[in-house]
């Protein structure tokens, strides 16, 4: 028996550790450092219909135990991802979760329909929560009705299960979670980054060219845990949790809060081997908790 095995809609994961979208590109860079087949799955960079150039620089700023980013969904576009990135990833024994973004519903639907036909794409992650683009992204994720309708539209065309990525920049995240569940979502991924700003001590102006950026890293973990805790008790679809994970203990926390698997983002920049290291650490953590298999931990905070 594999103690780390996790079964989710569309995804049979050999372990619950997934690099988060935007922090792992399309895998090529990290493949130079370790075997990607070791990972539970890979969430690839947001893909849009057309190529996106992203925001001006500086795009990142360091903050206390965290960072702000405003990359602006730069990506090579759907055609390139279908032709080069996804086929390249086929050499690894790892399911791909395709992060889908767009400006309007037509965009999302077009990307979802096409990208869900790639043989190694086992699930979609609908990005309705990017805080760094003017059109598309977060405005889909802050209104329950819009979120629900978009989910339904994408569900209607996708050949694989659809997970919706929620934004923490809302008053009531449970309401949005319920709305996407009603729209037919197979799962939820959460959280995307929290909108923040850092000023330059000398000029007094924002460091990030975009002004605001999305906060990620250890600083956001308590917020993410609270949200997973709340949402998991109100919906009947599984959650992939993320926000500030850096080690195996953080993973256990997210599972206890109610997530079934987790994604690791910013920590890859600090330690490029963080994902395989966590995977290696997990069995010992389970022993310490007298826990036979990892899925037994899910939701123990509120059981």
């Amino acid at each position: 028996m594999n103690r780390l095995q996790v079964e989710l809609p569309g995804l049979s994961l050999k372990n619950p550790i997934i690099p988060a979208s935007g922090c792992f590109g399309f895998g090529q860079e990290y493949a130079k450092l370790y075997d990607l087949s070791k990972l539970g799955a890979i969430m690839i960079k947001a893909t849009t219909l057309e190529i996106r150039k992203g925001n001006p620089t500086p795009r990142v700023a360091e903050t206390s135990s965290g960072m702000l980013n405003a990359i602006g969904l730069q990506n090579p576009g759907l055609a390139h991802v279908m032709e080069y990135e996804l086929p390249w990833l086929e050499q690894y024994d790892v399911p791909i979760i395709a992060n889908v973004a767009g400006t309007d519903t037509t965009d999302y639907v077009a990307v979802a329909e096409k990208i869900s036909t790639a043989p190694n794409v086992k699930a979609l992650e609908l990005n309705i929560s990017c805080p760094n683009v003017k059109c598309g992204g977060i405005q889909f994720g802050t209104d329950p009705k819009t979120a629900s309708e978009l989910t339904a539209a994408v569900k209607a065309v996708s050949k694989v299960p659809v997970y919706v990525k929620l934004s923490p920049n809302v008053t009531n995240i449970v309401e949005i979670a319920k709305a996407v569940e009603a729209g037919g979502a197979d799962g939820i991924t959460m959280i995307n980054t929290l909108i923040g700003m850092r000023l330059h001590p000398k000029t007094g102006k924002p460091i990030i060219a975009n002004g605001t950026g999305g906060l990620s890293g250890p600083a956001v973990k308590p917020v993410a845990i609270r949200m997973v805790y709340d949402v998991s008790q109100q919906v009947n679809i599984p959650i992939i949790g993320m926000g500030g994970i850096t080690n195996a203990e953080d993973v256990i926390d997210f599972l206890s809060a109610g997530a079934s698997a987790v994604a690791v983002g910013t920590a890859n920049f600090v330690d490029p081997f963080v994902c395989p290291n966590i995977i290696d650490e997990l069995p010992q953590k389970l022993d310490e908790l007298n826990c036979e298999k990892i899925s037994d931990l899910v939701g123990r905070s509120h059981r």
Partner: protein
Amino acid sequence: MIKQERMKVVRHKQIADDIFELTLIGQLSLEMKQPGQFVHIRVSDSFEPLLRRPISICSIDPEHMEFTMLYRAGGRGTKLLSLKQPGDEVDILGPLGNGFPVEEANTGETALLVGGGIGVPPLYELSKQLNAKGVRTIHVLGFQSINNVFYEKQFSELGETYIVTADGSYGTKGFVTDLLAQLNPEFDVFYSCGPLPMLKALEQTYPDKKGFLSFEERMGCGLGACYACVCKTTDAVENDYLKVCSDGPVFPRGVVAL
């Protein structure tokens, strides 16, 4: 090959105002070949500060499995780094990026190396490698003031070396381009690292020369995965943006929009 290693501090000393020379020992030194590549340094074992700091490789000593970097202790991370003592370990990721192409200068030719401030360090390994293959080097190094000048002796041992200070407290007063205008040197290829206005002035001063420039941008991963460090390109290049960490940090002249 890119490696991550906890390398040991061999020597660490201050060599000018806020400028430190740090020599580390470890297997990773054997992976370093090209001047102008950089390493990504984790200055603390905690998550404070969070991100790694990119610092150029200044010289490589494979025989002793060592490499040296020079850095300015300015902010939070580099100040923490400056506290490391011989025997301490530092988490290094590297070597990263594409450095200066030594092969673009032929034996018997002359190369002009222009550095500004903390852009000077990578030119040292470059000069060593160029001289080793019989390329003559001219060094023009710009600093703020006399207290910021470093490595004059080391560069002088390799070739003609000119120092410029902005306030005139040492060497020629002004910018490197002022001195270049007086000097009017004969050369076949130029290599440069330093502030953007300097790189821009060089491109304009030598419109017909072959040249290679090293750029800086704020980074996340340092590996090419996060799109944090992009720079805008000129119309001459197909891609609109290139990544400083993995496509650069060194680009041929005319590639990056200045």
